[in-house]
């Protein structure tokens, strides 16, 4: 496989992984972030801690536990097999699950910070107009903080593109299936193919700079 083919295929896997992960996170994170922002439950700190774990743990730790869970003998792997699927370790699906967990704080954190600033007077006004908690969330909180949602989505996408440790542990290195750009870069360096490594590294760097610049510029408008 030529370097160009390798980059293209890895970029495709990376992009697909980041898109899938972001799509799932954009469904999961807003309700979770809203719950964290306004609940008075005593379980909130624990939930927040679990969401924030990927921020502080080495990705390899998460990857190790995920590997055990997704392997044929692990609980999730067993469930997947019982449902007639293949074990999840070293598959694209397994990679998506790992990425969701790994990028969760990067989407949920900024969202709950934004949701915490919601004007309580507006929520009261909405309730006085007969809007249920769900309606208040869907029709008031979500659109009021739509910029934060887009920013969180971009951050989640970019972060998934940049992940390495978890993929290394649970994804392996199957071209077209689990070989993402960061792994391809690592491989090239190991093979002392510095030209190929340069191409991939520059691509990832340019992507990060461009995405972040445009996001921050858009947030100001």
């Amino acid at each position, binding site marked *: 496989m030529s370097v160009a083919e390798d980059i293209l295929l890895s970029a495709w896997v990376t992009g697909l992984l980041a898109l899938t992960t972001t799509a799932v996170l954009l469904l999961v994170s807003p309700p979770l972030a809203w719950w964290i922002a306004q609940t008075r439950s005593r379980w909130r700190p624990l939930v927040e801690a679990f969401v924030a774990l990927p921020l502080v743990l080495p990705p390899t730790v998460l990857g190790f536990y995920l590997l055990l869970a997704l392997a044929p003998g692990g609980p999730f792997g067993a469930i997947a097999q019982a449902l007639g699927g293949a074990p999840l370790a070293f598959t694209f699906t397994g990679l998506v699950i790992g990425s969701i967990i790994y990028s969760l704080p990067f989407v949920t954190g900024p969202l709950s910070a934004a949701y915490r600033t919601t004007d309580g*007077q*507006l929520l*009261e*006004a*909405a*309730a*006085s*107009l*007969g*809007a*249920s*908690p769900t*309606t*208040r969330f869907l*029709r*008031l909180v979500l*659109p*009021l903080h*739509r910029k934060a949602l887009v920013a969180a989505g971009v951050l989640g996408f970019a972060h998934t593109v940049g992940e390495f440790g978890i993929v290394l542990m649970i994804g392996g290195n199957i071209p077209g299936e689990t070989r993402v750009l960061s792994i391809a870069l690592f491989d090239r360096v190991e093979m002392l193919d510095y030209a190929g490594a340069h191409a991939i590294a520059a691509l990832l760097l340019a992507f990060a700079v461009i995405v972040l610049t445009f996001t921050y510029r858009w947030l100001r408008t």
Partner: protein
Amino acid sequence: MRLKAQGELTRGPDFRLLADLDVDVDGVAALVGASGAGKSSLLRLISGFEPHATVTVEVDGERWQAADRTGSAVPAHRRAVGTVFQESRLFPHCTARGNLEFAGRSRRPGVKLAFDEVVHVLDLEPLLGQYPHELSGGQRQRVALGRTLLAPAKLWLFDEPMSALDPASRREIAPYLYDLCRRHAVPIVYVSHSLPEVLAIADQVWIASAGSVTAVDSLPAFSTALDHPLMSDDQAGAVIACRFKSFDARYGLSELVFADAPLFVPGDLSAVGGPILLHIPARDVSLSTTAIDQVSILNRVAGTVDAIVQDGEAALVRVGCGEQSLLARVTRRSVDELRLEPGTRVLALIKSVAVRTTAELGPQP
């Protein structure tokens, strides 16, 4: 509608509200009282924004929350109560139309007005496409008012909703609101700091003072109670109920009967059904202890002084005339020279009256 709010609400060490209300709300109940007396807190209790307060709230026998916290409080969005806040609280991401449509989605029970009707009467058509930040303060409040009218409700709570409006828009909207309240049988609790406003709209008056809301008065009783917080207003004066007798076309005067005495009021009031409410500012009432025949003042009513309170450099004298009372603001020197004291027989000379026509405002209780 029967409204009950009984119990105690505390917020921090400095705020405590004792509510002891068990009243029939019909028409407009004005809620008056100094700032911090607990007026807004009472409205929040009824709306459901204080679900943890140890206050029993019941509407028409339906318990919304219990002082002993048995059962869970009915959440605010299920209470058929619409609130107009002091601030407009429009949703900034929606146009005026979006704000109005937000209100129409609820399926809770209650009276719900037609979108087109509300837009027409509040003159919202030109504003529909605009966002809140593009509207003036008065326009914003007009949209907020319309938004509340569009959500189903059995009771409307108005927390000084006119304070952001200019006098012209106020005059334009107030009769409409009152009319609505009558036609749709949705009672209103209306927080007000303005005595003229209370005199113009109220059927009954609730007084909040020193952290408790208890007293419930008819408008005539409220207007002659000497201890309420709005009494120092220039417009202070009795509201009295009179009966129409005849109209004298020669002079353009209607003759009314008040406490067996004739009262002459400009204009033809023959079309007003039921009692006619008159507001008689205390500053326009003089007192005499002797009969006066040759005087340009037409309206003279005999009565008996029943209370005198000092009011700055002047004194407020309450004169009982049959079942009702008048208020007169006189100098303290006059009190001494006429030797006014409770029990003194006096003649009240009335220089001006303002008719609160009941025709456009609906029947009085």
